[in-house]
């Protein structure tokens, strides 16, 4: 159990997907001008991450991995090259289902999260988490912990970044640097701050 908690913490801080692996940057830079929208986006990423990583883990373990089809008597079949299509399909389908469910049951939440959900299909942090999970041979329990940590870590990073950007409105920035240019530089500084965690063994 303690290993799983450690894994969650490690993925959250030491191996933060946004600031250490630099995943999901397009959405990260673009939807972070205000803290409340960033919180909405963060929650959406968290929810999708927590659900997709374990589902993809099960699919990989029991359908795609080399020798995974042993239960069908097809022990020599290796479908692992199909993981890209499968994972992105699961993510796209899940995002769609989530959108329908939220729309039906919680209009308030829909207003907050609705606009971000379509963006998540093309957010590389989500597909990236699933691919990294395969690369590291995580089991099911580990994949749950990994999805949780990855989601929370990404959400933390985007809220942090949005808070800094809100403050920037009051500063004088050279014209060409306004917006995107400065956003990159701040992200770089934040990433260096998180690099302080490297080397911590959990």
């Amino acid at each position: 159990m303690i290993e799983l908690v450690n894994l969650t913490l490690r993925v959250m801080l030491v191996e933060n997907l946004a600031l250490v692996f630099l995943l999901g940057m397009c959405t990260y830079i673009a939807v972070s001008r205000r803290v409340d929208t960033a919180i909405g986006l963060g929650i959406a990423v968290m929810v999708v991450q927590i659900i997709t990583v374990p589902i993809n883990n099960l699919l990989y373990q029991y359908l795609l991995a080399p020798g995974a089809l042993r239960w069908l008597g097809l022990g020599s079949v290796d479908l692992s090259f199909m993981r890209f299509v499968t994972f992105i399909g699961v993510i796209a389908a899940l995002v769609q289902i989530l959108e329908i469910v939220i729309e039906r049951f919680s209009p308030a939440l829909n207003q907050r999260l609705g606009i971000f959900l379509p963006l998540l299909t093309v957010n590389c942090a989500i597909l990236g988490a699933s691919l990294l999970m395969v690369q590291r041979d995580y089991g099911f329990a580990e994949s749950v912990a990994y999805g949780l940590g990855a989601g929370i870590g990404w959400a933390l990073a985007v809220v942090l970044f949005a808070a800094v950007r809100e403050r920037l409105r009051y500063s004088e920035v050279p014209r060409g640097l306004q917006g995107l240019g400065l956003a990159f530089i701040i992200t770089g500084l934040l990433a260096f701050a998180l690099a302080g965690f490297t080397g911590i063994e959990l």
Partner: protein
Amino acid sequence: MSRRQFLTSPLVGDNPITVQILGLCSALAVSRSLRPALIMAVSVIAVLVFSNLMISLLRGVIPRSIRLIIEVTFIASAVIVVDELLKAYAPDISQVLSVFVGLIITNCIVLGRAEAFAMHHGPMDSVADALGNGAGYAAVLLLVAAFRELSGAGALLGTQILPLAGDGGWYPPNQMMLYAPSAFFLLGMVVWGVRTWRPPPDSGASGTPGHLRYQDHDR
């Protein structure tokens, strides 16, 4: 716009990375040295051309309601081919790029151009657009990668250009450039330069549809 403009405008004025804010992840993550960046750029261009061509050919047949899933499937199939080819012919580069080859699927340039351009234009125009955007992406990626490799390791494409101080030369390498965050600083500078040289027109000029044009969401 003429076909030539489809090809040239994404190079600087409407660059996918610095103006449209598309495809950042890979631009940042694989730009540590020039060789992987080169392979990555070629892979992205190949996927982009394939997906734009296929989607443009099939644009009359694809039902609107499920078009995203179909587009993504095309892109993912192209990526699988690229990934298998890399594993077979350049296994060392495939190791370096690790998950980032798979992440070409979510490289927003590919889906963004499929949605914004290939769905409404003929196959030849779409290929021109794909080549133009791919080249714009490659230009920024290679610029950042060349700078990082040269200043961080004193080399280009693995060949030592500046003799390192540690090996009896005169150049003390800037280790910071090898860390991921420095890519942000460089990209920030590139954006600053491009925007000072050619101030961007009001957003929306790139024709990227609403759900892929991120800026609009938090105005």
